[in-house]
């Protein structure tokens, strides 16, 4: 499995990572942009729960996907 820090680094800066080389994630925003956490955040309308799980399980073993409180974003919390 890829190290969390390596993948996180690629999410940190959209200029560096567009298009993000995880299939289906061209609109991933930088970490912490929405709620101050270190979660990866994705606008809800850009992807579905199943897509996110299937994509991230290729990279991580231990992670969770959930909505931000305002339901505008998916958050991917990698442990």
């Amino acid at each position, binding site marked *: 499995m890829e190290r969390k820090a390596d993948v996180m680094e690629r999410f940190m800066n959209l200029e560096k990572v567009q298009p993000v080389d995880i299939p289906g994630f061209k609109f991933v925003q930088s970490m912490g942009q929405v*709620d101050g956490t270190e979660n990866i955040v994705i606008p809800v309308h850009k992807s*579905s*729960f*199943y897509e996110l*799980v299937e994509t991230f*399980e290729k990279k991580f073993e231990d*992670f*969770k*996907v*959930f*909505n*931000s*409180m305002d339901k505008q974003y998916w*958050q991917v*919390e990698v442990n």
Partner: protein
Amino acid sequence: MKFSHVLGGNTIPDNIKRCLEEQPARSGMYNWIFAHKGEINTFHDIKDRLDDFDQIQVNMSPKDMVFIPELRRRLKGSSTKLIINNDYVCEYWGKWGLDPYKYDQIQRMGDMVFSTEPNQVSNMIDGTFVIPHPSNTKYLKKLGSAHKPTDSMGFIYHWWAPDGKHLGARTINKFIAKHGERYDIKNSTIYGWNQLGDDRMAQHTDIMFDKVSPLQAFPDFAQKIQGERVVYDPNPYHTYGRNGVELACFKRPVVGSNRVLSYNKLFPELTINPMDHNDAVAKFKIALGRDSERICEQAYKDVEQFNYANSLKKWNSATDIAFDRGGVEWNEKQM
């Protein structure tokens, strides 16, 4: 295996469509469609092309039960098998005003008949199988929550059976008053509560609970309830209990009724007689104590007995047995 669930005459109700589109899917009967990679069709959509399928399933709901005799008639001489299940708690069957002989005759029209827990099945014709509905545990286990467990207890209200459910509310209320400080519990939330026009029950709810979380889409419910330190479900009815499966996937401890199969299977140290409120208080203490993590970790492992692969094994074993012994011809002779 080509599979279809049959539901509705001309249309699939909007609430069922919404349910089928949820991500992640709630546990329960409709997961057979996903597990079999099958379809859902209305009676009129499918009635003239039943041979396109290897198996069709009909739930004995009052609305869909009426299709079963006609499907059986149309399947005469067909290799397509008719699967019949009863998805309602057995305590409710009497409320339909169904003639007992008709109830049995409907079941005898199936090539394989099942329900989800032993008490239900004991009320059905001989040879009925116990097969709990499947759950997509893989995805449920990946659903996290922005609601982190804090100082709240959750209570599951079953909207489909509203009578008598407020007994549990008093138990939570008393527990917080007597022991809340010791366990750092200050709040309670009732889930699935809609007023349904009963003002007396609404008054009780407002008094007993700090927060009311009305019926909502499953993904919203599933994220919100993960913010509870412990969940309480003194369900007085016999059912397999999808809440137990889901809470196991979320690693949330639940003090649950011993009439519910999933609580007995997954949280055996936390099950209670739903009318024994002293026992419930004792189990709250366990659920909030040092054994909580161990109990939830075990449930998280054990919940795989309800996953799609293991559920399909049960289904296939049941259909093998049922079809080998003669399917509908065998069931027609059962009491």
